[in-house]
């Protein structure tokens, strides 16, 4: 716990959080733009509103050392772990410059060199994989932890509970994080969870469990650091429910949010906007004035535009590539 006390954020840190959150937001806006332009397709899910959550956790870990895994809402995680944004955008648009050369797309971003394990489309399905990453760390006696993100809807999947039981039974250094944005596609929390206090789900497995706020980047980082340090030290799992909100639709194709929430509710929640909140803090601490913030935002918008252009310059994969990577050492039976 000592560790936590000494944490007072430097201006540089806070500026970095601010820049990264803005970057994620504008990058995501550009993703939605690409979708509207027909440059990307399929299912595409942005992180707008949830930026502080990823910021807090991914600054609390040792990047490139600790394991990270999440579902399909994965752009922010890849970007913060250090994947070239051009590559990320290229993958989202199905170009060869993507980490998977266009075979994965928005839902399936991976970056092995940064220990980022995706990027998965089956709700809840990746959670045991995260348990397995932690299992490997423990097996090898390394001090890595696994950050295992899932949604509130995913936290109902049976395999999640199976994994929690084994994580508790085997003391796996895995942090199970429920990104509770209060909705699963079009189903509100209260319609999918018998008890909306999802943090309780770790309790039957003798796993330390708690609920924290994910809309304040600074506090998020502090809590994340406390928990990451505890897990690394104690080599036991942890279950955390992080309260958040997604301002966008479920995915780029979800264009009628009125089916599950009112405009008023959204307006209410915009008051929780993690970026606005950090801006206020930056001002309060005299780290930055509004003009500076405005300038930074313009700068980032420019960056993102440039990234998009670069990504678009990358070609689509050539048809022959379709048989690559089915196996590491052979090709499948070819042809129709």
């Amino acid at each position: 716990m000592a560790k936590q006390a000494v944490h007072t954020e430097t201006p540089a840190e806070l500026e970095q959080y601010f820049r990264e959150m803005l970057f994620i937001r504008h990058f995501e806006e550009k993703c939605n733009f690409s979708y509207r332009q027909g440059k990307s397709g399929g299912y595409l899910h942005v992180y707008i509103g949830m930026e502080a959550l990823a910021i807090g956790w991914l600054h609390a870990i040792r990047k490139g050392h600790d394991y990270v895994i999440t579902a399909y809402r994965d752009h922010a995680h890849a970007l913060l772990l250090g994947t070239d944004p051009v590559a990320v955008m290229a993958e989202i648009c199905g170009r060869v410059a993507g980490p998977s050369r266009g075979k994965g797309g928005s839902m399936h971003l991976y970056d092995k060199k940064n220990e980022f394990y995706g990027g998965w489309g089956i709700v809840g399905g990746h959670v045991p994989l995260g348990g397995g990453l932690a299992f490997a760390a423990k097996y090898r006696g390394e001090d890595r932890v696994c950050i295992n993100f899932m949604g509130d809807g995913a936290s109902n999947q049976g395999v999640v509970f199976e994994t929690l039981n084994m994580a508790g039974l085997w003391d796996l250094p895995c942090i199970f994080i429920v990104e509770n944005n209060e909705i699963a596609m079009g189903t509100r929390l209260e319609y999918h969870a018998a008890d909306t206090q999802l943090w309780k789900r770790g309790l039957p497995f003798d796993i330390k469990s708690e609920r924290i706020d994910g809309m304040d980047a600074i506090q998020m980082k502090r809590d994340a650091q406390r928990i990451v340090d505890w897990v690394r030290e104690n080599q036991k799992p942890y279950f955390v429910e992080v309260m958040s909100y997604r301002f966008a639709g479920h995915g780029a194709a979800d264009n009628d949010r009125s089916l599950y929430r009112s405009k008023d509710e959204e307006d209410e929640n915009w008051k929780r906007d993690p970026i606005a909140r950090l801006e206020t803090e930056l001002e309060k601490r005299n780290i930055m004035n509004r003009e500076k913030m405005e300038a930074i935002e313009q700068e980032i918008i420019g960056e993102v535009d440039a990234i998009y252009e670069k990504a678009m310059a990358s070609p689509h994969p050539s048809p022959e590539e379709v048989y690559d990577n089915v196996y590491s050492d052979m090709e499948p039976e070819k042809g129709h």
Partner: protein
Amino acid sequence: MAVMSYRDAVRQSIVDEMERDGDVFMMGEDIGRYKGTFRVSEGLLEKFGEKRIVDTPITECGFTGIAIGAAMAGLRPIVEMMTMSFSILALDQIINHAAKVHYMTGGQITVPMVVRGPSGAANQLSAQHSHSMEGWYAHVPGLKVIAPTTADCARGLLKTAIRDNNPVIFVENPGLYATKTEVSEDPNYTIPFGKARVAKEGKDVSLIAYSRMVHVCMKAAEGLEKRGIDAEVIDVRSLLPLDTETIFGSVRKTHRAVVVYEDWRSGAFGAEIHSRINENCFDDLDAPVGRVGGLNVPMPYSRVLELECIPNDGDVLAAVDKIV
């Protein structure tokens, strides 16, 4: 008769049967308030209320099991899989429980249930969301498996499925929902299982398919026509039970056949149809029976690569060229 989309035909059949029988109810993810991701269930919540249009948590295995249990007690659930790919999570419930209980109980218990949803690739949904599941189900004794191509077939066969006392897997396709045909409006319009449909008569070669691939075959048939080849197109419709009589009849007439399916080429149910033709029509064949299936790769995201994987009319023409 009225012109109706495949989507509306499926919905209309659900409405008919729910109005006809209070034991029929629907269960699935985002089917009520959200109207269903493919909008099949639009308006049903308003019409039938929460008791009969049940929005579930994302727990396919659990809610499918609950539906099966309800069916064992005499209710008639219609389970919507947001996509059939997700039914993989419920396979144990469907295959080990729904499909076997009638047998294990020596006939005491029946499971009048329909599991329906889109199967196959849509548009860049990538590897985990693009499965063709019907072949696996059609391998399982105790299940019935239906895969209609037209709105009219969807309407008639779904009503038959809902009235059936056995578990029925009803396979739709993302690419079919918007397609329209003349559809019967008779609230008692049903089409019996186990009867294939001759989509187009012809005498030179039999193209045998189901679901969206029937349209691909029809397009190929046009191409063949230009080359003076008169193709017959058989819409299998019902995989289990399978109408081998119609299939064999066609092959015995044309002496040539190609089986076409979207599923991975190797080990798909199309291989079973192919084998049955070879076992039973051997002496009637003037050439080896052809096959056209999806490439044996996980579905890639890139549209360029995805289009490589899914069979099109050109692939069917190429297969026909090999045998005529």
